[in-house]
């Protein structure tokens, strides 16, 4: 499943970039996500709880960052394993930060999400809705946090 989004934030490019490469802040902006342990400079252990009504899916796994400071491009690979045979989730997300003005920044995100298991079997449509929604929430938090 591919997700492509582009949005602008009323904040300087530097602060947007700092936000995007800070695992703790990114996790805080994603409902259900948490970082539990730092493995090395670029790799963290974490968890993701997705709750949709009565439906609950919990993933634990690792997040690895690969940063290109010069291009302001961050590549994140998150791999999680679901509890109780729920299957796996594997996301590669590349975000790019482009300065549009002193307090105007464009962020483009291309994500490739691969989910396996029962959720992907029964709820492919639902997953698309949920990931779109989560992405929207993330950008809202980002905009709010960085708002002048």
């Amino acid at each position, binding site marked *: 499943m591919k997700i492509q989004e582009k949005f602008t934030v009323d904040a300087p490019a530097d602060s947007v970039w700092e936000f995007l490469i800070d695992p703790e802040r990114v996790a805080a902006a994603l409902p259900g996500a948490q970082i539990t342990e730092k493995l090395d400079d670029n790799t963290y252990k974490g968890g993701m709880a997705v709750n949709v009504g009565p439906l609950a899916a919990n993933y634990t796994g690792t997040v690895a960052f690969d940063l290109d400071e010069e291009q302001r491009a961050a590549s994140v690979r998150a791999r999680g*394993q*679901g509890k*109780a*045979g*729920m*299957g*796996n989730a*594997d996301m590669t997300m590349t975000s790019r930060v482009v300065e549009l003005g002193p307090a105007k920044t464009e962020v483009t995100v291309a994500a490739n999400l*691969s*989910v*396996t*298991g*029962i959720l*992907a*079997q*029964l709820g*492919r449509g639902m997953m698309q809705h949920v990931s779109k929604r989560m992405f929207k929430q993330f950008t809202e938090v980002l905009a709010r946090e960085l708002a002048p």
Partner: protein
Amino acid sequence: MADATAKPRTSAKICGMGHSMKRKEDPRFLQGKGNYIDDHTLPGMLWLDIVRSPIAYGKIVNIDSSKALEIDGVLAVLTGKDLEAYGLHWMPTLMSDTQMVLPTDTVMYQAQEVAGVIATSRYAAADGVAAVEVEYEAMTPVMDPFKALEDDAPVLRTDKEGQEDNRIWHWEAGDKEATDKIFDEADVVVREKMHVPRIHVASIETCGCLADFNPVEGHLTVYMTTQAPHAIRTVLALVAGHVGLSEEKIRVVSPDIGGGFGGKVPVYPGYVIAIAASVVLGKPVKWIEDRMENLQADSFARDYHMDAEVAADAGGKIKALRIKTLADHGYADAQAAPSKFPAGLFSICTGSYDMENAYAEVDAVYTNKPPGGVAYRCSFRVTEAVHCLERIVDTLAHKVGKDPATLREENFIPKEAFPYHSPLGWEYDSGDYQAAMDKAKEMIGYDDLRKEQAEKRERGELMGIGVCSFTEVLGAGPSKDFDILGIKMFDSAEVRVHPTGKAIARFGTKSQGQGHETTYAQIIAEELGLPAAHVQVEEGDTDTAPYGLGTYASRSTPTAGAAGVMAARKLRDKARKIAAHLLEVSEEDLDWEPGTFSVKGAPDKSVTIQDCAFAAYTNLPEGMEPGMEATNYYDPPNLTFPFGTYICVVDIDRGTGEVTVRRFVAVDDCGNIINPMIVQGQIHGGLTQGLGPALYEEMTYDEDGNNQAGSFMDYLVPTAVETPAWETGHTVTPSPHHPLGAKGVGESATVGAPPAIANAVVDALAHLGVTHMEIPIRPERGWGALRGEGGEGGWVVSVMGWGGVRASQW
């Protein structure tokens, strides 16, 4: 020899061939007294439930059973490593490929068995499954069979020595050079690419077993949902012989089966895990699949990607056929096909038409899908062959501007040409294709429908008429060609008449709803003149039934049915000797009317078959072996070739693309008919299982290997509302080589219905430039075709190719 159109030879009391005898098995099924696998329990019985892979391809990093084992009632968790210790972690498929029972390091498809949890109840076992933690390192699965053949595709079966790519085998039939030459010189060539999609038998009962190993005697009894108990026992002995389970210590019992359709022929890992668990724990272990396991892990059917071409003259006379096929077998070639026929009987693809030459080839590949594929209500790839031919013949008719029925009639093999030798090597036993076509056209009112269609088209309404004139090949088969794992595909019957004139007949086949208890009794009644009500039929217990290869591919009547006839005839011959003895005449002086020997010219001097049976135990002629029992192992001299013409009328909703089957007439010719009621029922069921893949059913996967039709939410089995009121008729062209002139019927309708329906939909849209629709024809596909209607500039949207919608110039 009875003829269904003629009066039955036997009285209603005897109820031999041609009587619509009510089924002997019905009272127990109607009163909740059937005995299906999940109805079995044994003292101390444990439950197996299976941990399955959520991913399609990847390495197993770790299996942690500790939390599962803490659950009250969970006794053990079996993994591939545990089975490896016994050398039981791999098993052969019926097609001489190999597959894992449980993996030791790699999973190859979603829902693959990963570990078995043994517990004291269904509920505890399910909790145990949820508590086993398996860590995987996922790899990118190969889901597209075409990509599986590309150079950069990973080699999936690294376990197989010498396997350097994902090819399994290449098969071909016919004279390629001669066929190509005809194509080069032909007036007209038409071509369609088509996919007969991956589907599932979806019998309402899932699979399961109850394995009961007696550690004291070293004896194993397995009650299991199998269509082929004897073959399964042999396979089990081959798999587990080295741990002491030799064939005489294994008893396989196939109880009442809630639908098989080919899906209950293979050995699934669950059976083997249950057996292993019973052996390890020394207790009976039951395993019953749930529906999602059944749909996601058990053998699929079909999945043939075909590129078909027909060469013809300008008038539409077919000259040659050429088909190139890619077969997606998933992780392993687990077909249940005869050994020498890796592509099954696909070479029946020249069908009902007389042509000069043909060439067909099939390449089989591995992908990360469950292994298969089974002959789902189909005599080994006949469905694929018939769909391909019957669809492209319509394309030809369209191209040369002929009515599809007319084009078929002009190409039929004439009835005087039988026995007919097809270009791909079959000897068709008998046929009268025009008779079936005439009857179907008359029943449905073909000419009036064409007028109605023309009027509706004027008004912009979409109505289509689809024709299919198929020829099947059944009854595998003659031992010179047909075997499974080396075992010849004969079948068997054993008939014993008791002193009081009642009989038991045992067969090597296994009914799954076909009504063998009734039809076999009628066969014995026909031959011996005993009332069918007095003939008890038994199948499915390897300790009592004679060895046979089982029930699938419509082979029961052609093989075991024939064996029953031959065994009964042996008894009749013996009875004649006894009758001569009792009546004190010579055998030549006796007349036989079903049930009675009488003295020629003195009909009041007679004895009944029951008298003879009593005498066989009480008053024998000198030197005669006592008893009234005979066995026959029947090796058919040829296959049988049933045929028929189906005509279907559909209406299409212009706005949504929804297809409604308004009428469907099926005229079948399956030779002489044993029980017309049962034959009609078989056709109704087969038609519905043809309707499913034509309009609704398909097993698909996303790019990550997730099954997208893994429950009845998405695997769309037709209900009574979608299913039309089938109309059936028949013609009778007896098989010259079957002792009853019967041909077998269980599968014709599954084979013939999909192209009839697809042809009707294409016919409804043909004026818009549509030449082909992939099945299942979901509303969106029809709508996609409609969308381009009226498009200016010569472009219309056609639904073609392998599943896709593409714009094509018309």
